[in-house]
Structures are given as C-alpha cells and as structure tokens.
C-alpha cells in the first residue's frame, strides 16, 4: 500500500479547457478519500491522472513517494474500478480477474488461490465460468471489484462504481465496498457525484468544483463546518437553507434580517464566530440546516427572535420525519436566496436550486400544505458566509 500526493497538479486540455487547477492533496497510506462534486468538476480527471490514463499538464503526482507523472499505467501498480466496469467481454469471470496476474507471470496456483479467494469474498464463486454478459449489473460490479482485489495493488481507484446500479443494490454495495476496503486496508480514491456515498464511505471527503478543490475534511466536519457556500449547499440532503441577510447590531445583540423575518444571533454562536462582529451593518449569507428548525409547538419557550413565520408549500411525510418546504410569506419574491448566488457563480451550470427553505420536522408536527406555521430556528447553529467571496465566516459551533 502507498500514500498518494497531488502537488499543485493541473490538467489543461489541448483546447485550453482547464479540468483540474493546482490540486494539492495528500492521501495517507490506507486512507479512503472520496472526491465529490458535480459533473465536470474535475474529479474523474484527477483520478485518471493517478491511473496514468491522463497526462499531467503541470505539478507533481507522487505514488509511494515516487514521482509518477511520466510513469506508464502498468508501472504504477494501481487498480481501478470503472464506472461501466470495463470487463473483458470475451473472458470468463475467472479470466477477467486472473488477467492482470497472468501478464505479470504470477505462478498458476497462486493466481488460482487469489482469484478463488476474491470470488469467495465477493460471493462470485458460482459465476467464475460465466462471461460478463451473463451477469447482472451487481455481479459485474463485483467482478470489477474482484479484478482490482486480486492484484493486491498499492492503491485502488474507483470511478463512480455504483452509479449504474439500482438504489437498493447501491446501498448494499456501498457497505460492501467500505467493508472490503477496511479489510484490505488499501489506500483508496473514490470518485462520486453522490454526496451520500461521499459522506458514508470516506475517511475524508474532498469537494471539488470547476477543477478547484474546495475543502478536504472528515465527513462530519465538512457537514458542520463547510468552508464556503458551495460546500454548504452541496453537502447535506436536504441542502443547507441559505439566504442573503443584513446583519444589524441592536442594543448589544446581532440580528440577521431577511424580508420581514429576523433572527437573533445567539451568544454561543457569536463566541464561536467572532469574525461576524466585523460584518455588523453589512450583508452576509446566513445558513441553517433543515434539522436545526423545529415547529413552534414543540419549542414553546423559544423567543420571538428565533421564530420564522412560514407558509408551508410542500409537505413530504417520510414516516420517521416530515420535510416541510416553506416560504416566508409575501416577501418571498424579494428575498435573494443564496442558491441564486451559487448558481451565478457556476454560470448556471449547477442544477437549479429550490427557492424554498426546508425544515426537517418531527413525524407528528402539525403542519399542512398551504397553511401558515411558526417555526423555530436553533440560532446557536447558524452559519455565516461572505456574500462576495462565498467563504465561511469563522468556524461554526461543532
């Protein structure tokens, strides 16, 4: 196993398109790092550069301490699982897995031992003689995994390996891949656009956008302390509620006002984020997670400066909880929701974001579509961002 280092790695295509810009990232031996981001963010290009399938324009890539920029793929000792599996269609499952070992002249009985062991781990033993076309999507995915495992390589690269599977199988394989990775202790780079995969599988998650690394952190920190507006809106489902507000100081307290609503910034929040004091009297983007909102009936003690007068527009009952999509009364049209800011920054490339807020309420919260409701925000857990740079202000409370 080996550590992988991106040192200001840049990829510019001949037509001038910059796919990855100055990517610097250290991946420790045995670590599971997930590269996540929307389509075209450069995550797959970064992975392919590690595999040696894409030339590096500038910067240095090191695998196990050796500069790998000009190494051929076969010299890198790295295994890769492709999005479409890329199995050898004319070879049986056994030979798909054995191929890499055969061309390395590994003794026959050793090949046999490793292939059968991988097949056992992946539950493929009864399919060894089949051709890939006679397998289901999930089985093909396992063969692709098996082909990587038998190599016992320095690192695993996985390019959206679950995206062609149905929802249930994806959940199963997600756990399976995480289990195998832990069992083998292999350095792994996993590319996905699915933030649930990113959050559940990785030791660390690297969020990319437009070829630029936005933040690398443990999943919880990424969720709790997003470095900028993009990460805040990308990580978490439902996405963080973000709204442009003016931060006003009033008799020693800070209030963020948006439309007719006003939320008082709690002392705990102010202590955790002293930087916001400098923004008094200025505009900021304020963010709050959907689970930090409750309905007023379950928090009767909450003061008026924590309450929002909402109009419930859509109510999604999920059994264990209710997702309430709401607007803030008549003033909704006048509010610049920060989703718009992000879209502007993306040049409209990212998916259109909801113009509504979302609250995650208890399963028996008395909210009905089209009706007004009073909601309470946990103002200890507000997030603040600079509206110009999009950067987070201070560190949010963990």
């Amino acid at each position: 196993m080996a550590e992988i280092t991106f040192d200001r790695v840049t990829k510019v295509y001949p037509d001038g398109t910059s796919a990855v810009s100055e990517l610097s990232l250290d991946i420790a031996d045995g670590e599971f790092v997930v590269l996540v981001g929307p389509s075209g963010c450069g995550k797959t290009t970064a992975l392919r550069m590690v595999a040696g399938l894409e030339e590096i324009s500038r910067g240095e890539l090191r695998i196990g301490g050796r500069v790998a920029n000009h190494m051929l793929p076969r010299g890198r000792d790295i295994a890769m699982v492709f999005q479409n599996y890329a199995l050898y269609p004319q070879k049986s499952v056994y030979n798909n897995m054995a191929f890499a070992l055969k061309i390395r002249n590994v003794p026959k009985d050793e090949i046999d031992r490793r292939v059968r062991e991988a097949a056992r781990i992946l539950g493929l033993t009864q399919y060894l003689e089949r051709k890939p076309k006679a397998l289901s999507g999930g089985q093909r995915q396992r063969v692709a995994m098996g082909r990587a495992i038998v190599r016992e390589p320095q690192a695993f690269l996985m390019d959206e390996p679950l995206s062609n599977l149905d929802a249930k199988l994806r959940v199963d394989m997600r756990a399976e891949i995480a289990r195998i990775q832990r069992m083998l202790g292999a350095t792994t780079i996993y590319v996905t656009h699915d933030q649930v995969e990113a959050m559940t599988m990785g030791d660390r998650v690297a969020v990319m956008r437009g070829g630029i690394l936005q933040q690398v952190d443990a999943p919880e920190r990424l969720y709790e302390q997003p470095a900028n507006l993009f990460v805040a809106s990308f990580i978490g489902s439902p996405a963080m509620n973000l709204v442009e507000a003016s931060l006003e100081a009033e008799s020693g307290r800070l209030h963020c006002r948006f439309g007719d609503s006003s939320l008082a910034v709690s002392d705990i929040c102010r202590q955790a984020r002293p930087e916001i004091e400098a923004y008094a009297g200025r505009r900021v983007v304020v963010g709050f997670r959907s689970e930090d909102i409750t309905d007023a009936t379950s928090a009767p003690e909450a003061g008026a400066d924590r309450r929002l007068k909402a109009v419930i527009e859509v109510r999604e009952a999920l059994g264990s909880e209710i997702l309430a999509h709401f607007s803030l009364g008549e003033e909704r049209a006048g509010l610049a929701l920060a989703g718009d800011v992000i879209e502007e920054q993306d040049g409209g490339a990212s998916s259109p974001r909801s113009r509504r807020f979302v609250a995650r309420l208890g399963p028996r919260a008395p909210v009905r579509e089209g009706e007004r409701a009073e909601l309470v925000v946990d103002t200890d857990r507000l997030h603040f961002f600079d509206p110009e740079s999009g950067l987070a202000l201070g560190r949010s409370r963990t």
Partner: protein
Amino acid sequence: MAALVTPVAMSRSVERSQRPRRMRLSTQRRLTGLVLSIPALALVVAFVVIPIVQAVYYSMTQWNGVTSTWIGPSAYTQTFHNPAFWQVLTNNGLLLLAVPFALAIPLGIAVLLHERVRGWKFFRSVYFLPTAISWVVIGMVAERFFAYDGPLDKIIGSHTDFLGSSSTALLALAITFVWSMIGTNTVIFLTGLATLDTTVQEAAFVDGATAWQSFSNVTLPHLKRFVQLAFIMTVISAFSALFSLIFVMTGGGPGYSTTTMEFFVYQTGFSQSEFGTAALYGIVLFVMMAVVGIVQLKLIRSE
C-alpha cells in the same frame, strides 16, 4: 339478476355458433407470410435454382452452345484427368495464401488510423481509394507497374517482366489483389474499432498490459466478428472477383499460370466454346465456395 344474465348469455352462444369460423391469428399470419414471399421465391427459383439445375445437367454434356450430347457423370472423371484443371485449382489455392496478407495489412492500417496518428483523415481516404476504383483500372495500373522495365523494375533495379514470367505472374496478381482489398478491409476494421469500448483498453493498461497485450487480449477478440466478415469477403473476392484483373493483366497466362477457376470457366466456355465443360468448372467453383461458406458458418455458429 339471474333472469337478466341468462338471456344475454344465451344470445351470445347463439351468435357464436352462427358466426362463420374464423382462422386463428397464427394461421392467418403464416398464410400472409407465404403469400408475400411468393414473388421473391419465384425470382430465386427462376434465376438461381433453375440455372443451377441446368448447369448440373449441362456439366454432364458435351455442348457447344447449339447442340448438346449427353456424356453423364464420366464428364467429371475426364476432367479430373486434365492437368490444366489441377493447375487452375492450385492457382486458386495459392491465391488463398494471399488472404492473410489482405487481412493483416488492413488490420495494421486500421489500428494506426484509429490511434488518430497525424494526418489520419488524409490516409483514411488514401487507403480507401482502391475500393472506389474499378477492377479494370486497377488491373491496367498494375500491368504498367509490373511491366518489363516498369516502375517496379526501376525501384528494385532489375529487368524482369513480372507478368510475362510464369514464376512471378501469379505473385504479381496476388499482390495486386491484396492491394485492392486494403480499402474495403480497412473500413471494416475501422468500423469494428469504432465500436470498441475504450475503457476496456484502459482497464487492460491499468491491469498492467503492454500495447501488444492490450491488442491481443482486448482489441483482437473484439474484432473477431469483423475479421470473420473480412475473411469471407476476401475469400469470395479471391475466387470470384479477379476476372477483370486477370483479363487485363495476364489473360490467364503465361500458359495457365494465372488462370483461376473463375477465369477457366470463361476461357473454356467463350474462347473454346465448350459450354458443357465450362458448366462443369462452374459447378466445381460453386462447390469450392459452398465449402468455404459452410466452414465459415460453422465457425460462427460454434460460438
């Protein structure tokens, strides 16, 4: 309720028994299919089956185009004693040796073009050009190329009449044939390569394969069907499309050294007016082609 239902049910059963019996849908479909295929069937019988039967009949006669005398199956045994017949068969066999070259060279070209080497679009047109030129023109160009003191002699610095010498004429013909097949086969292989999933090649490289290992383990197995198709077409061309080339380049000579079965049929029939014997050679050619076709089909089906 029962009083209402019973009369309706009764009237239905009466209707059913009075209605004329309809054909089942599957029978109707089968009949329609038969009716619709009659015109095609008639054409095949008129222009393929009857001529074949006639050819078999005439192959056992002595026929000068006007009068025919029945000889019987002994016509075949007589033919098998004709040394010219065996030389012609040998020529056909030797031409088959050119087939691997007519496949391997286009395969190499197609792989290079597929790699998008510099100027690949230009070269693609260049290699396809022979396909767009008539066999007669190809033959005339080749005749000049191989002529005594022609371009080839100048290149290799000799004074040989390649087409005039029985030891080199067939080779010259084979080279021309290979050259003329390059375009078609290159296009077939390029089509095959275009359908190759490049990630499978990438997977092979990541698995540690060299360029050759990737070619032999991924590209070539993928191209198997395309190679089979090109093989069939090339063999068929070698047996049945070289008439114009031979006619223009050598006229089948010197002696019988470049006469193939196809040309032999023409010579025997139209130069020597032995239509019965020509029909016999036609039958032999037909059997040869049939054997190639059947073997090929077996190979494809066996997968």
